[in-house]
Structure formats: structure tokens, C-alpha cells
């Protein structure tokens, strides 16, 4: 992974509501290397979806990007700043959470998968053929038959496969996944995760995979960024991050998750609830809930600092955490 050129590099991205000016995503920087999977984990409302959507310029009309640049590695030229619309249908595509609402109910499956290529000017025939190939590739049984079906006639898992086929139809180098398995059953989630992994390896795709479930992220992501209230507060290789979190929030997140292995233990909880956007506490946004918070934590928001190769955290007390209270 190391040493490869990043496919995409996002620097200092901020997103705010147009009317109230409330900042929803604050100074987020990310990069993904070719063939790598970056996981983003965070609780509901932490800004994961907005971050992802802003890459393709798909923010809701009430929101807009206040700062930040996206640089993308084109097929020939090197990393260069790009506008969202350049990426749509060219190099980047996205899978959404709700497989039902993501499929246009008035279009047949085949047409849906062919829509992307058609928009790029591929002929009708070629696009249709490609659609069949893709449907087969993502494991849709009887593609010829299914291509003529309507979205509502498919089960949730099949819909998500179709969605993935649509995403692949524009031959992306980077695939953005916004909780693609959250709405699915456990066994189907397992199938889809396996499929995504397979495609990633076969096609050398770079992935950004967003989820609120750290266990899903830990299964699929090479590196993980943890978001809290619109900011990335910790970031590092997934294994290291899970084994020795360097931010109290990450640690609390891990400890509050029930485990399937080992002796059953009482879950740990975090006091309070996440702050609402626009009503952030001064200083570190996690400070009011943090068991380790000291006065300094309430003064200023700590920046995301590198603390080792590929690891960064935004905690003043990360040094103490390293020594480790019992996890």
C-alpha cells in the first residue's frame, strides 16, 4: 500500500448549511491510494455521507462546500485538482445505502446499468451488452432475464448488486460506498461485502467505505478514519486503530460494541450524546463526554496531528492513552 500514488486527495474540506452557515463538516482531509480501502466510521450525523457526497458534488441544495480541494489521479496525467462534475461518470462512482430508493422505479434493470455508459456516448447496443456482462459479474443470476425486470421485482440483495453493477459500469478507479450494507440482512451483508472485496481485488479499485459499524469497517478497510461531529478525530491502519485506539472516542466506540467472541462482558457506555451541529462546545468537541478531559481540552479544538507512520489523532491526551489505561 505504501508508496503507491494516491487516487484521490481531499484537502481541508468543509461543508456548511447555506442559510444558517452552520458548519457540518469541518476541515476534513483524506487520501486513498490505488487498490486501497479507506474506511470512515462515525455515529449518525457525524458527516460521513456529506463528505462522500461532496466529492461528486451531490450535496443537498441547502448545503454547500465552503472550502477544500479534491485532487484526482487521472488515467494518464497525475494528481490534479478537479471539479465534482468531472468525476461523475469518469473515474469515480458511488453506492448508496438504500438499495430500493437508489434505483429509478420507472427504468428497467438493464437500462439502469446502461445509463452511465450511455451518458458517456456508448452506443445502445454496446451499453446493453456491457450491462449484461456487469450483471453477471456482480452475481445477478439470469442476467438476460433480470435486465428486463423492474427494480421493485428484485430482493434487497439483488438491488444492491444491481447498484454495484451500475457503479462499475462507468469503469471507476475509485468507488465510494455509503453504508451499502446497513439496510441488508446479516447474511446478505456478508455476501455484498464479499462481492465488494472481490471486485476491489479483481479490478484494482480504490474504495472509500463509510459505515457506522466499526466491525464492518474492520472487516473491509485497510485504513480507517473516525469521524465525530463533522471532524476526523483519529486515523490510522485499521488493525492498529482497533487494537490501540489513540483517541478516547475511538476507544469508547470499540468498548461499547458487543462482541461475538470471548467472554460476554458488560458494555461500556459514553456519557451524554453527540453535540448538534451549530451548538458545538468550545474546545475539543468530545471533551464534554470524555473521561480523560482536562481543562485544556475545553479551551481549544486540538488539531489532527500525526503520531506515527500513517497514524494521526486529534487528542491532547493521546500520549497518556498510548501508555494505556486498561482497555
Amino acid at each position, binding site marked *: 500500500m505504501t508508496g503507491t500514488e494516491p487516487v484521490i486527495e481531499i484537502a481541508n474540506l468543509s461543508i456548511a448549511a447555506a442559510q444558517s452557515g452552520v458548519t457540518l463538516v469541518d476541515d476534513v482531509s483524506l487520501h486513498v491510494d490505488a487498490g486501497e480501502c479507506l474506511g470512515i466510521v462515525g455515529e449518525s450525523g457525524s458527516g460521513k455521507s456529506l463528505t462522500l457526497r461532496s466529492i461528486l458534488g451531490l450535496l443537498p441544495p441547502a448545503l454547500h462546500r465552503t472550502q477544500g480541494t479534491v485532487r484526482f489521479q487521472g488515467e494518464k496525467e497525475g494528481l490534479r485538482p478537479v471539479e465534482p462534475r468531472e468525476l461523475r461518470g469518469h473515474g469515480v462512482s458511488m453506492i448508496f445505502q438504500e438499495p430500493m430508493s437508489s434505483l429509478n422505479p420507472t427504468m428497467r434493470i438493464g437500462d439502469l446499468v446502461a445509463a452511465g455508459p450511455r451518458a458517456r456516448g456508448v452506443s445502445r447496443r454496446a451499453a446493453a451488452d456491457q450491462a449484461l456482462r456487469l450483471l453477471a459479474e456482480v452475481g445477478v443470476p439470469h442476467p438476460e432475464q433480470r435486465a428486463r425486470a423492474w427494480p421493485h421485482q428484485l430482493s434487497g440483495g439483488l438491488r444492491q448488486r444491481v447498484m454495484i453493477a451500475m457503479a462499475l459500469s462507468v469503469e471507476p478507479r475509485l468507488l465510494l460506498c455509503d453504508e451499502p450494507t446497513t439496510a441488508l*440482512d446479516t447474511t446478505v451483508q456478508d455476501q455484498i461485502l*464479499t462481492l465488494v472485496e472481490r471486485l476491489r481485488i479483481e479490478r484494482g479499485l480504490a474504495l472509500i467505505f463509510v459505515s457506522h459499524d466499526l466491525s464492518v469497517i474492520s472487516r473491509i478497510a485497510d485504513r480507517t478514519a473516525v469521524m465525530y461531529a463533522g471532524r476526523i478525530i483519529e486515523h490510522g491502519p485499521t488493525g492498529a486503530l482497533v487494537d490501540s485506539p489513540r483517541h478516547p472516542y475511538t476507544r469508547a*466506540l470499540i468498548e461499547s460494541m458487543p462482541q461475538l467472541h*470471548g467472554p460476554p*462482558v458488560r*458494555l461500556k457506555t459514553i456519557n451524554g450524546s453527540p453535540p448538534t451541529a451549530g451548538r458545538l462546545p468550545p474546545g475539543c468537541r468530545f471533551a464534554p463526554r470524555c473521561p480523560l478531559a482536562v481543562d485544556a481540552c475545553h479551551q481549544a479544538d486540538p488539531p489532527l496531528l500525526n503520531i506515527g507512520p500513517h497514524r494521526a489523532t486529534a487528542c491532547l491526551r493521546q500520549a497518556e492513552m498510548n501508555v494505556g489505561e486498561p482497555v
Partner: protein
Amino acid sequence: MSALIELDDIEVHFDVKTRRSGTPATLRAVDGVSLAVERSQCLGVVGESGCGKSTLACVLVGLTAPTAGRVRYDGREIGVDRSKDLRRRVQMVFQDPVASLNPRRRVRSVLSELIDCHDLVPEAGMTSALNSLMDMVNLPRRVLDARPRELSGGQRQRVAIARALAVQPDILVADEAVSALDVSAQATVVNLLADLRAELGLTIVFISHDLGIIRTLCDRVAVMYAGRVVEEGPADTVFASAQHPYTRALLRAAPDLGRRGTGSRSPALEGEPSGALDVITGCPFVSRCPEAEAICSAAPPAYVGDGTHRTACIHAAH
């Protein structure tokens, strides 16, 4: 057996019109389920979407009339038209924190209305009763004067639990009560339920699709598939040595922090749950079962196992 509540061969069938042709069909949401929960026990029910978990919960609390079968409370058979007092004894906590509270009512009025209705405390004791309810669910007392929209999801779910507790029930049925919550809020609610059980001796039926939570909270677990219980037993035995191929697949498919890595492997289970509309003659799992044999599709497999752990599979080793 001194079960507090018992389900005896419950079937719930819905008459539906198929979308394609509009012809009427029978949907077997619950198809012959027998379960028993003892006092102060916690039974977990797992299963995939549409397997009939919520329907089962509604039968338990008396919101849905079973097509066939009996519900027994403390040995007495009870139907849907329950007396006020009987109704009070089995309460439910719902999945969606947004829909589970009346948006126009303050927490206080919702709770006191229920307490009033059953004359559980004298008028003078209302305030203290409400305060102690809040303490019980670990919420600050000022939440009493809040409207649902001012509360976070975890808080709402705790208010919903307080509402259920307000009528002093014996049994709490929690239908995916934590699925919509973030992990941190989820942990709070799960801990709360565990505490309530310990402190009040509450009997809990906890429905979830999250195996991890079931394992943390429940003594026993029932695994449902297509309207039937395919395996039931003590939680630690089921998790340690699952007998039904579906239970095993479920355990293998569940993502877990303790088992990371991307190593490409085949999915735990192929295919998706079949529709509840299809007529099933044999084992409902046969079409997806990696171990299926010809005999499996002939007749529904009988339960094998001892008094505590039973499995509806011919391969089960007991």
C-alpha cells in the same frame, strides 16, 4: 415448567393480494412457533428481515390475534381481548425511536396518563413516581418536561422503556429496540435493560438481528427462519456450538471486531430468504442449506435435542 408466558404452536397468516396478479394468497408470517419464557429470564429472538419476529412480538403483547395456537400467561390462556390489568403486564418497546413517542405530548403527560389509567399510585405520589421512573431509566428529571423532538434517539428509547415500566409490567417485549441507535446509545439501552432485569426481576423478550447484543443480554436464544423457530437453547450453548446450519451461517456472516481482515473468502450463505408467500412443504431453509438432502424438502424436520436446546434439523447432533 413454570413459564411466565408461553406460546403454543402459534400461527399467524395474513391474507394478502399478490402484486402481480391480484390473486389472494396466504402469507405465513409465523408458522407454528412454540416458545416459553420463564420469569426473570431474557429470551433473545434472532432472524433475518421478514422472518416473523415482529409479528411474534405483537402476538405476545396482544396486538395481533394468532390464526392458530394459544398464548398462556402464568398458565392461563389469554387472547387478544385482554383485561386492562392483563394488558398492563406485557409491555413492548418499539424499534423506531421517532415513531414510538407521540410528538405532541410531553414525556410527563404520556407517563402520568398511563399511571392514572391503572390507578397505580395515588394522585399525590405522581411526581415522585415519575421521578423514580426517570431515575430507573437513567434520565435527568427535566426530560419529563421535554417533548420528544428535543430528545436524542437514545433518550427517546429510554423514555419508551420508562413508558413501558410505568404500568409495572411483568414482561417487556423489546422489538429491535436498539437497532436504530448508534453504538454508544445502543450500549446505554442494552445496559439499562440488563439492569432492569436484575433489579426488578423483569422478564424480557428481546428481538434483534444483532447476534452480539443477544449474546450480551440474553440467557436463551431462539433463531427464527421463515416464520419458524429453527433452533432454540441457552445463549452460550447456541453461540458456542450452533446446531442448525442457518445459525452457523448467521454467526459466520456477522461482522465482528474480534475477527478482522480482508482475506477474500466465500460468503457464509448464498441466496436470500425466500418470500413468506411460497408454500413450504419441507424444511424452510432447504433452498439455501449447504447440507440439504433430498429428505429435507419432503417434510418439516422435527425438533431434536434435549429439554433446553432444540434444533429443527435432521443433521443436528444431540
